């Protein structure tokens, strides 16, 4: 039995130490630390998936993970209304342009672009997969402050081999197996790497923590 316990311990340690070779957050997110953005305007997601309604349904779930990390995100329903009025619904047209005008119009420090690369549910393989890219750009300097890609696959019958991932997986599965739930998990996982914002007690104190790789990929298991 002891052997099994040790084995479980080692596996967990290995899993949690995977990122030892990664640079610290103060290196990986250098511009973010120097600019210290507080307010973020989320642009309507750019949808490259085949799921048409993904864009609007996903939009309002974006602010939660940023606020939990200490940032202020402009009210999503109100922002969407104004962005539509200003004919800024198609973020594709703005992503490569200057952010300075947007900053002046909305009074924000940064603009968030999200690209939904994949958003699918296949009943044959009984899996849901979302792949989302997050790009945060400064309205002061146009610099990229945060750029991460998250890919989450929810499978109903395969074991991921990691206790932690399995537990989160079963939470997701019991909630309801909708793509949106997987999308939300992708937000929480991927955005959790962002250095803490002004409203967090960790603000400017997490620079020595290791950053995560740019592409984040995981398979969750529906384990009940």
């Amino acid at each position, binding site marked *: 039995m002891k052997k099994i316990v040790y084995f479980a311990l080692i596996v967990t340690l290995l899993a949690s130490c995977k990122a030892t070779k990664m640079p610290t957050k103060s290196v990986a997110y250098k511009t973010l630390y120097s600019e210290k953005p507080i307010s973020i305007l989320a642009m309507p997601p750019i949808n490259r998936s085949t799921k048409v309604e993904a864009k609007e349904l996903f939009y309002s779930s974006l602010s939660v993970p940023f606020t939990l990390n200490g940032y202020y995100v402009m009210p*999503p*329903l109100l922002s969407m209304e104004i962005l539509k009025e200003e004919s800024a619904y198609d973020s594709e047209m703005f992503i490569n342009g200057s952010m300075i005008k947007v900053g002046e119009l909305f009074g924000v420090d940064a603009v968030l672009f999200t690209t939904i690369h994949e958003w699918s549910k296949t009943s044959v393989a009984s899996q849901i997969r979302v792949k989302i890219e997050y790009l945060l750009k400064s309205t002061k300097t146009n610099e990229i402050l945060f750029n991460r890609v998250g890919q989450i696959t929810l499978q109903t019958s395969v074991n991921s081999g990691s206790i932690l991932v399995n537990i989160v997986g079963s939470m997701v599965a019991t909630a309801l197996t909708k793509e949106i739930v997987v999308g939300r998990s992708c937000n929480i996982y991927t955005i959790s790497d962002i250095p803490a914002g002004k409203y967090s007690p960790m603000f400017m104190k997490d620079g020595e923590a290791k950053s995560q790789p740019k592409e984040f990929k995981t398979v969750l298991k529906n384990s009940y």
Partner: protein
Amino acid sequence: MTKYLLMTALGIIAISCKTTKPLYNWKGYDDAVYAYTKTGDEKSVENLIKIYEKLIKKSGGTRQVPPPGICADYGYIMIKKGENSKGIELLTKETVLYPESKQFVDRILKRLEK
């Protein structure tokens, strides 16, 4: 033996998760706003309002204030319903809680005055 294994697993999880309380309470928001965006029907609006009320009154989280954007979006829904004075009150509350929102919200308020 299973018991020990389970205990070890739970112990490790407890250590690695650090059990920090979140900054805000967002309970019920995701599903309510999802339903509102998807259907926009009377029932989803009423439910969303109920959640907004709850998040404002029972703020929870370590900061003990309503999460960012909640008061402003609630105000927007109220204005859409024709309840302008309550809407304006909520929008103003957002700017008090979060001064970062002032420029944006003031633009909306100015428009309402016209």
